[in-house]
């Protein structure tokens, strides 16, 4: 069996499990076992393929759906960028899913909860794998549809009213996406990423300008992806969304939803819409840089000003997204690699913090900082997990956040030093907000307000899955810190292939795809050499 064909299993496994989950509405235990098996399988597959890719010549596996050749059919591409994100997202999904066994209400579990989590991951995995713009839209929609349902699960009035904001905003975003995809097709005649990159490369090699309106189009798509990724000034939907739903689901959302938007920018902009010095790039890159500064800094200020754990963590997602946009705004190989590393470490760490928050809520009955305290003495293990995750988020060496920030800030220092300063400042304020949770929840003596009766004391046994989920994620975070070297090797390769998409084009479209471009490049190089020869005498 060819290895290339296997990559579709990232999509087929969650979908199949979700389909079975539709039928197993009442059989909660079987659905749980199947769900865990599904996430284990995708995680193992992702890690296995990543290890295999390290010795692969190009590091890109391509499968053409139904064997239709590339620009006509649907291509599914597993390269270093998708691979790292798939591995991280599968592990995060596994952790959050296991955690949900102790937080989700039994009534919700019988209403397609398991199927919806699988379908959410189906959408996320498809988004990471797909090789064309339209399937990116489809996968966004699958993911969003599952997230709408998971968001309104409790059916409380607050959830309903908050859901409208998220749902309507995303619907309008999706409409702009469809129109944008249609415009891309109208202008270039293709939707395949590799073919689009080839189109841009051809135009550049020939010295011809891109079609008029291409820059406007890239701004429209930036708007859509930015909305999903919650970058400044499109973030206002995020804090309320993560506040009203189940805490394990909030952890899953915090890991997945924004990252898919950032991934879409990382996949399309360096390769196509803002590829090396085009007109669009001259407009997009300053926008991204300014947006990154505001996203980082205002996000962290918002987090510092809040006073309950879930809100702090939710607003913090925005600030961390700013670092990723920072990496994207530089758009160099190394910065893109740093952005990718930061994305995966943030997925793991932020979800882990949300899972810890879920356990804290079970201990204290609230997520208000004033009314919780004394947890260090009562539950040292939770304190340890939270501390490692929080310090990873802050970026204390040798934990994972440090390596992500180091590369991005270092790379930005020469060209956009003011962004680097904002980044460092944000890091300091992140430390402040994490210490706030730490000192109120763990260090301070027990708040007097809580009455502990045997009924509301959390049952240790029922919390066991929650600890297992959080432990899994904190182990992954530790691995990303201490094993940053191999991860960065893959990330650098991904950054190189994004900045220079030739390998990607050849892998998807076939060996002869770049011949025309190479001819043009050779002639223009000759011309340049001739001009240089004329100048010298």
């Amino acid at each position, binding site marked *: 069996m060819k290895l290339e064909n296997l990559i579709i299993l990232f999509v087929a496994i969650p979908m199949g499990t979700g389909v079975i989950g539709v039928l197993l509405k009442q059989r909660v235990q079987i659905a749980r076992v199947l769900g865990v098996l599904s996430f284990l399988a995708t995680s193992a597959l992702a890690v296995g393929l990543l290890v295999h890719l390290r010795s692969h010549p190009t590091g890109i596996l391509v499968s053409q759906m139904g064997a239709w050749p590339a*620009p006509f059919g649907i291509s599914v591409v597993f390269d270093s960028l998708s691979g790292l994100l798939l591995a991280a997202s599968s592990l995060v999904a596994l952790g959050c899913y296991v955690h949900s066994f102790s937080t989700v209400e039994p009534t919700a579990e019988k209403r397609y909860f398991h199927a919806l989590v699988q379908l959410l991951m189906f959408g996320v995995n498809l988004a990471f794998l797909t090789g064309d713009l339209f399937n990116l839209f489809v996968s966004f929609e699958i993911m969003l*549809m599952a997230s*709408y349902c998971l968001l309104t699960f409790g059916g409380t009035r607050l959830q*309903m009213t908050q859901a*409208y904001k998220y749902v309507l905003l995303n*619907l309008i975003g999706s*409409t702009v996406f469809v*129109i944008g995809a249609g415009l891309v097709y*109208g202008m270039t005649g293709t939707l395949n990423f590799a073919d689009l990159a080839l189109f841009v490369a051809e135009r550049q090699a020939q010295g011809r300008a891109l079609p008029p309106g291409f820059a406007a189009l890239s701004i429209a798509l930036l708007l859509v992806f930015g909305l999903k990724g919650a970058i400044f000034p499109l973030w206002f939907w995020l804090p309320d969304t993560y506040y009203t739903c189940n805490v394990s689901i909030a952890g899953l959302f915090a890991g997945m939803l924004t990252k898919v938007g950032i991934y879409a920018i990382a996949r399309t902009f360096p390769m196509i819409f803002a590829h090396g010095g085009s007109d669009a790039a001259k407009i997009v890159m300053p926008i991204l840089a300014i947006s990154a500064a505001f996203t980082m800094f205002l996000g962290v200020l918002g987090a510092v000003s809040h006073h309950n754990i879930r809100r702090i963590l939710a607003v913090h997602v925005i600030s961390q997204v700013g670092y990723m946009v920072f990496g994207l705004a530089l758009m160099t190989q190394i910065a893109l690699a740093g952005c990718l590393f930061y994305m995966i470490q943030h997925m793991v760490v932020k979800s882990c913090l949300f899972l810890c928050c879920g356990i804290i809520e079970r201990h204290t009955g609230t997520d208000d900082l004033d009314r919780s305290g004394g947890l260090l003495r009562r539950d040292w293990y939770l304190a340890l997990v939270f501390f490692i995750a929080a310090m990873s988020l802050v970026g204390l060496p040798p934990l994972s956040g440090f390596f992500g920030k180091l590369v991005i800030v270092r790379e930005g220092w020469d060209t956009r030093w003011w962004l680097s300063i904002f980044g460092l400042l944000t890091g300091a304020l992140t430390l402040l907000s994490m210490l706030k949770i730490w000192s109120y929840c763990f260090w301070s003596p027990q708040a007097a307000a809580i009455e502990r009766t045997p009924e509301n004391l959390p049952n240790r046994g029922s919390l066991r899955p929650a600890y297992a989920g959080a432990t899994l994620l904190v182990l992954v975070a530790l691995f990303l810190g201490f094993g940053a070297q191999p991860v960065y090797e893959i990330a650098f390769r991904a950054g190189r292939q994004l900045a220079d998409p030739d390998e990607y084009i050849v892998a998807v479209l076939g060996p002869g795809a770049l011949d025309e471009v190479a001819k043009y490049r050779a002639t223009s190089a000759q011309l340049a050499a001739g001009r240089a020869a004329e100048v010298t005498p």
Partner: protein
Amino acid sequence: MTIILSICVAVTFAVSIYLMTGRELKSIAMGVFLLGHAANLSIIAMSRTPVRHEPQLLKGAPILTEAFDAARPMSSIVDPLPQALILTAIVIGFAVMAFLLSLLVLTSRKAGTLNVEQLAAEAMQGA
């Protein structure tokens, strides 16, 4: 044809935006559905004969048997891709419509109103 289509797109957009500025969630939902249709129409308006790649695969397929001009093969083909896109977008719009309608029913049952201002006031109290 393109002019008629673009007028249609413009009118649909205008109506949907008018509906979305309403005070009732019902009219906002209808506006969102119409917005999807406007987007689909605009994709039709953008479709044309394929220019970048001639679809080699289609030659000799039964779909070309009638009105197929062998001398100018590209003139008699309708670009199939926008149609596939629109079909997919319609399916997705269908699912979104189902979700929004059931959300509306649930909201009106829980809150007793679908007026945006009343719901917002309630949300302020709740938060």
